[in-house]
């Protein structure tokens, strides 16, 4: 640790190259495994998504019919 004025005022850290390499390797390893395995969108999943987003029934816009269905 390189301090300036007081111990709580650390300005830099000096590491042995081997320690630095070990820290760097750990950081890289964490970087590599941090991203979750991401499943691909299969054909079935894509089709299911499209089905869920597609209107499938009759659109009721006639006021009397809407009121009747809602029991109003």
């Amino acid at each position, binding site marked *: 640790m390189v301090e300036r004025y007081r111990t709580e005022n650390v300005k830099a850290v000096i590491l042995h190259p081997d320690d630095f390499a070990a820290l760097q390797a750990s950081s890289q390893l*964490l970087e590599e495994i941090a991203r979750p395995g991401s499943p691909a969108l299969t054909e079935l999943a894509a089709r299911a998504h499209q089905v869920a*987003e597609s209107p*499938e*029934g*009759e659109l*009721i816009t006639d*006021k009397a019919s*809407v009121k009747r269905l809602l*029991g109003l």
Partner: protein
Amino acid sequence: MSLAAGEVYWALVPYTPQAPFQIYTAGSSPLEVPSVDQVVDGLRAGGDAEFGFLVRAKARPILLLSERSDPRTGDHFGLRLLRLSELSTEEREAVRDQREPLLFHLRPEHMANLPEESAALISAPIRIHESALDTRRLLGQLDKNEMRVLSERFVSYWRFDLHQLLVAKIRELQARWNG
């Protein structure tokens, strides 16, 4: 076009429907229904019947939470933003100092084309179709570290159960160390 997590674009964003619901009727004023039960019962009684609902929407910037997209679905996942001008002076300072975890401050130096200083609302995720996303102009972009903090806050707030994922990652880490 390839989009990245942390990018901000204009989008057409509807308000989340909530009671009372406005049902469209042709040639007359909409019908107001006070509760979801009434709508569900009515639609179920009608078999495959569907109603048209009146939902307000506006153009607003959104922050993309994921770069994941697929032309077969066309969907993106993002967060709504809040203009800091909507807050009091003290609240704005709290957001800028990142003391309000659910309002993620978007630093203006990263948001050059965003009209106003804003925060991403961790509590307001939204799914946006690509046809409702205006990608002509990038408004700004979070850096990798900011996205990591935002993602952590997002999964924490929404209480995603990451147990299995964490266990798998710890095992993977152990295997890599031992290998």
